[in-house]
C-alpha cells in the first residue's frame, strides 16, 4: 500500500556538525581466510572434559549459551550445549586438533578440523549494525549483544555464527565457505547506501 510507505520528512533535519571528528561512513568488510576452525563436541557437565579442553586451549570453555571464551591465541564459541567452534590463528588447525585429541583420549568427545568448510568475515565501521540488521533478525543493540556474546543466526538466507570483537563495533561472522559468494553479494547490496570498503587480511 503506497500510503503506508510514504513518510513525511523530518521537520528539522539535523545538519552534520562541521567540527565533528571524521568518521568512517562506509562499511569495512573482508574475508579472514585460512583461520584455524575446529569443531569440538563433548559433555559440558563433565569436569574432566572441561579441564582437559581448557588446559589445551588456555581459554575458558563457554558453557553458558551464546557466549564466547577468549584466550591468548584462540576464541571459543558456544554453538550448542555440547558443541563449540574454536577459532584460532592461521595454520594452527592440525596442531590444535592433535593436542585436543591427545588430551581427550579415553573420554567421550569429537574433534573435527572444519577449517576448509568455513571462512570468517570481518565487518567494522559505523554502519555495521545497520547493514547486518537488513539480513539478520538478531538484536545487536550494545545492551543486548556486546563483546563476549555470540549467536547463531542468518544473514539473508545464509546461516552464520556471529560474534563481536570490538565495541567500535567490529563483528566477525563464521560463514560456510560455499555461501561466501552469496554473503558477499548480499553485503554489496546491503551497503548500497553507505558504501563498502574491502579490507584485506594477510
Amino acid at each position, binding site marked *: 500500500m503506497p500510503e503506508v510507505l510514504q513518510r513525511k520528512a523530518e521537520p528539522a533535519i539535523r545538519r552534520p556538525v562541521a567540527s565533528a571528528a571524521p568518521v568512517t561512513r562506509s562499511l569495512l568488510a573482508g574475508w579472514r581466510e585460512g583461520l584455524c576452525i575446529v569443531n569440538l563436541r563433548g559433555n559440558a557437565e563433565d569436569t574432566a572434559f572441561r579441564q582437559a579442553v581448557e588446559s589445551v586451549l588456555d581459554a575458558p570453555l563457554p558453557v553458558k*549459551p551464546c557466549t564466547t571464551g577468549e584466550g591468548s591465541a584462540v576464541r571459543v564459541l558456544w*554453538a550448542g550445549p555440547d*558443541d563449540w567452534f574454536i577459532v584460532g590463528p592461521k595454520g594452527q588447525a592440525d596442531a590444535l586438533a592433535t593436542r585436543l585429541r591427545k588430551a581427550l583420549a579415553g573420554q567421550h568427545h569429537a574433534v573435527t578440523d572444519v577449517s576448509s568448510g568455513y571462512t570468517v568475515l570481518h565487518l567494522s565501521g559505523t554502519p555495521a549494525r545497520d547493514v547486518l540488521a537488513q539480513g539478520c*533478525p*538478531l538484536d545487536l543493540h550494545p545492551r543486548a549483544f556486546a563483546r563476549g556474546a555470540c*549467536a*547463531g*543466526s*542468518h544473514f539473508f538466507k545464509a546461516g552464520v555464527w556471529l560474534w563481536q570483537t570490538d565495541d567500535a563495533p567490529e563483528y566477525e561472522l563464521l560463514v560456510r565457505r560455499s555461501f561466501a559468494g552469496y554473503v558477499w553479494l548480499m553485503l554489496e547490496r546491503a551497503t548500497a547506501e553507505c558504501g563498502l570498503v574491502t579490507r584485506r587480511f594477510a
Partner: protein
Amino acid sequence: MLQIDCPWCGPRAESEFSCGGEGGIVRPPNSESLTDAEWGDYVFMRKNPKGVHHEQWRHASGCGRWFNVLRDTVSYRIHATWRIGEAMPDAEGQAAASRSNA
C-alpha cells in the same frame, strides 16, 4: 514474525527456526508385535487441532536443538517452550494440549 523463546538461546526470530510438526509422540517399544494399523497410526497419523497444539521446533540456524512448543493454531500465540525430556511446564492451554494427547 513470531518471536520464539529457544530454551537455550532465548527469544529469537521465527526465521531462525523450523517446525517439525506434532511433538511428544513416543515410539512404541514393542514395534515387532504391533499390528499394521497401530504402526501406521504411530508413523503417519497426526493431530490437527484448532487451538492449543503440542509441537516440536528446531532452532535451525542457532543451537540446532529440537524442543517442545505449546502453540495456539488459531491465534499463533506461543504459550510455552521447554526442552526435550523435561516435563511440560504449567502454562495456559496446557490442559487442552494434554487432553488432545491422551
